[in-house]
């Protein structure tokens, strides 16, 4: 059937004076396939849109070319007109006769305007509609982890009305949170009992993920618990597996009972039966890992607690204090006011054990001299590392890590909680070094993101904008390997042949697969070869 193409030309309030619009209209009108052509002075304004709409209806136009300014500014406005007229918004092209033509050139500007419009007409003739479709999603969330962020997120997701599974590798929920608890003074046990009492939350401990299939909205996760393996369906995944710390010490010092971690000191501070209170305590941070905030936070809190509870003499050796978290400058001031001694040093102090005491030799930058200190307990410098399972999990989930090995690629467009794989979210310490207020923001962010995705039970999205033709696909896997969003999988079709299938929900329409497919089996609506060639041949 002959396509009825309507061309709407805008002269931007008669400001594009170097184009002879009468000549443009005359030339374009002669071009075969152009059903209607209208010159409207300000197409993007209400009156212009009205004229465009009535013309589309009156002349039975079924696809549209607009020759106006950059699509950056107004494309969404014109697409809306098409939708209002009951046309598919993809049956539309824009020719930029303002910034890329009138403003840019002298000489035969009219000629270029005509060419741009005819290129768009030739493309538009071949365009195919892209329909929207409702995709049903599983209204269940899997939260992986058992620390503060995981428990808190589960509680909020459940309150938002979503069935939630909280799964962790360890046997007891909230076991490793002593340090965080002391940092922000909450009670993990009450949170754990709240989770346990919540009917909307299923708890799986000593369990881990072994495989995942499916895409956003409908993931199938294989979970191993003990010796049995089960499959569950989830609409979204929230990864909150936290971080681990490692003492940055030479190995012979690690075994010394008086050289401890921040977590060990937290336990000592809480221990009512502690026999000997350490008289002198040393802390160290920011020498071997200069890019973490949490050691500063832990040191300030623990130094203050030791000062207050035990009345110990406290010396802190550090290079730079990391005060770029909420309230930390004040905490730093408070610690100094309480008599905690802060000693800045550019190089890591030397540590030795002598007669049961720990000797610290440092060069202080203010005093410009050597400091020798013998302390009873040294809280050694800690390095922040990704949790143990991160490596294995990231390959199961197929999500990238950053340069320090934590989850989430360093692409700034992914922040705060999304991964490059739609439907998989990353929150808290497992995506980097976050203080408590940042973790809380992560938790709230993920709750609303998951709610947005799953609450209604279905998602309206464009279907088959990018599609692999099962007849042409030879299952070479090139597209599956290249897709940055992990949106393509192999499925078995009738006759036992395996072909690539693109998930409409996971696809971001970047077009890489369509460009690279050696069998030319993948088409990207709006950018198909014939559509692009039709434009090129116009001016050829």
């Amino acid at each position, binding site marked *: 059937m002959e396509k009825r193409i309507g061309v709407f030309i805008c002269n931007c309030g008669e400001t594009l004076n170097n184009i002879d619009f009468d000549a443009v209209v005359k030339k374009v009108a002669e071009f075969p396939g152009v059903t209607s052509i209208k010159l409207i002075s*300000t197409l993007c304004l209400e009156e212009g849109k009205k004229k465009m709409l009535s013309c589309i209806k009156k002349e039975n136009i079924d696809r549209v070319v607009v020759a106006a300014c950059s699509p950056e500014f107004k494309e969404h406005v014109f697409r809306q007109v098409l939708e209002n007229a009951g046309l598919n918004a993809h049956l539309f092209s824009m020719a930029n006769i303002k910034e890329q033509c009138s403003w840019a050139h002298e000489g035969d500007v009219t000629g270029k305007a005509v060419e741009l419009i005819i290129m768009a007409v030739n493309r538009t003739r071949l365009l195919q509609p892209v329909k929207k479709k409702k995709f049903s999603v599983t209204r269940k969330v899997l939260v992986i982890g058992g620390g503060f962020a995981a428990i808190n997120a589960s509680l909020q997701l459940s309150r938002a009305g979503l069935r939630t599974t909280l799964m962790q590798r360890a046997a007891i929920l909230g076991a490793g949170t002593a340090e965080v608890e002391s940092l922000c003074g909450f009670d993990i046990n009450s949170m754990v009992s709240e989770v346990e009492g919540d009917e909307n939350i299923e708890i799986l401990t000593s369990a881990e993920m072994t495989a995942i299939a499916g895409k956003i909205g409908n993931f199938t996760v294989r979970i191993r618990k003990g010796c049995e393996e089960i499959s569950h369906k989830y609409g979204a995944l929230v990864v909150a597996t936290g971080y681990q710390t490692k003492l940055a010490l030479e190995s012979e010092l690690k075994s010394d009972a008086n050289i401890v971690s921040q977590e060990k000191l937290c336990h000592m501070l809480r221990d009512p039966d502690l026999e000997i209170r350490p008289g002198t305590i040393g802390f160290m941070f920011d020498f071997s890992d200069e890019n973490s905030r949490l050691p500063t936070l832990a040191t300030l809190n623990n130094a203050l607690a030791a000062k207050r509870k035990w009345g110990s003499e406290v010396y802190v050796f550090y290079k730079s204090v990391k005060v770029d978290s909420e309230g*930390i400058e004040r905490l730093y001031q408070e610690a100094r006011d309480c008599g905690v001694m802060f000693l800045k040093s550019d190089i890591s102090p030397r540590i030795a054990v002598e007669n049961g005491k720990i000797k610290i030799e440092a060069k202080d930058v203010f005093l410009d001299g050597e400091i020798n200190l013998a302390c009873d307990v040294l809280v050694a410098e800690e390095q922040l590392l990704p949790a143990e399972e991160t490596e294995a999990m990231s390959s199961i989930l197929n999500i990238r890590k950053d340069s320090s090995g934590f989850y989430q690629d360093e692409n700034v467009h992914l922040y705060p909680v999304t991964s490059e794989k739609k439907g998989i979210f990353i929150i808290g310490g497992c995506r980097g*070094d976050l203080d408590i207020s940042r973790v809380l923001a992560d938790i709230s962010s993920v709750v609303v993101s998951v709610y947005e995705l799953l609450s209604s039970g279905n998602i309206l999205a464009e279907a088959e904008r990018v599609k692999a033709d099962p007849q042409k696909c030879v299952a070479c896997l090139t597209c599956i390997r290249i897709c940055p969003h992990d949106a393509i999988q192999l499925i078995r079709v009738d006759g036992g042949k395996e072909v690539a299938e693109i998930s409409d929900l996971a696809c971001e329409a970047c077009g890489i697969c369509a460009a690279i497919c050696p069998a030319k089996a993948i088409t990207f609506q709006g950018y198909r070869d014939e559509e692009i060639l039709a434009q090129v041949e116009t001016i050829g």
Partner: protein
Amino acid sequence: MNTESNDVLVVGAGISGIASALELANSGVNVYLLEKEAVVGGHSASFCCKATDVCSQCSACVVPDKIKEAVSHPQIRLLTNSTLRGLSGELGNFQVAITQKPQYIDQERCIACGLCTKVCPTDPKAIHPPFAEAMPFCYVLDEEFCLRFKGEKCDLCRKGCPTKAIKFTVKPKEQELSVGAIIVATGFDVFNARKKGSLGYGRYRNVLTGLDLEQIFTREGYLRLPASGEEPKNIAFIQCVGSRDEDHDYCSHVCCKYAMKLAGLIKYHNPDALVSIFYIDLQTAGKGFAQFYEQYKKNIRFVRGVPVEVLQTASGKLDVRFEDISQGKVCKDTFELVVLSVGISPREQSWNLARTLGINLSDDGFFAERDSMSTNETNVDGIFIAGTCQGPRDIPDSIAHGIAAASKAVQILGQSVSQRRGNQGIH
């Protein structure tokens, strides 16, 4: 009469306000996005891209995308040039009074053709385009320069406008909105470097702030000395100007990283330039920053100690006096350009808005959170805070905080009235 509303008002269309509004709108909530300026984006829209051969992850490029999405979102109603004048009611049923400055140029009708600027007889032009990435891209009128506001009868732009978008007869517009919740995201003021008189800002042309430098890179794409137009060879960055001092009990979170990234950009354009950064403590934490810091350590000179005085020499260079703590003595160095890494200050008008809304301010002058475990909530139920109006944040943290505020609003509006009474403050 039941006037319960589930609409949300977001006050301030900087990056956190936009993040809040988008998240709310995508969750099906109707949003009013209030902005006191003519264009949205706030401070975040004025930062430059700091990429060298590789992306430096400054997040400046995230902003235009979000702005465009918010401006064209069918569920977000944008109210520019508008301020909040009054508030009554409670959670679920707030009445908000809004005043809109006279809109001399109708945003719906301006097509940014530029004819008005061409005919405007003043210098500088009283009617001009907003900055390049501005959205909505509508021309703005400066009452300060426009002849009509000086009693003259100039009518050139109005007559020349092809879409009749300019009207001088318009009056301020008052309107009242009914909303269920309010998110305050009014952002920050850049610290006024003139307050530190001894550092020479405002007196010496070659003393700039970090924000000035951002804008020079955005506008020109390269760095030249404001005084002579030559390429500077010796540049000093002074950290903590308006942070971590007797008046500011906080770190501004952003300055160390923007200074290092700008220094990296200067070195990229001119590898022979010498760049020194004077600091108290280096804030080098953050995703992916370790790899950049390793590079910066190799080609930037870091000096522990913040200068107290900058003096211009007869030849126009700048003498910087500082205590080099590592050497334990007072030193003097000469630079061609000094950049003050100015920090984030609370908005001067925060106090007025706090009074109108009945919310508390913290000791530092930012809006106070209800408690440290809920940094989006205020002492008033249904009024939330997002972004740098609550405390210093960089762009990613502001976006996260904005989304978190939206989350709180969605959760509380999703509850029935009785549930809300029984379950105040969801953490």
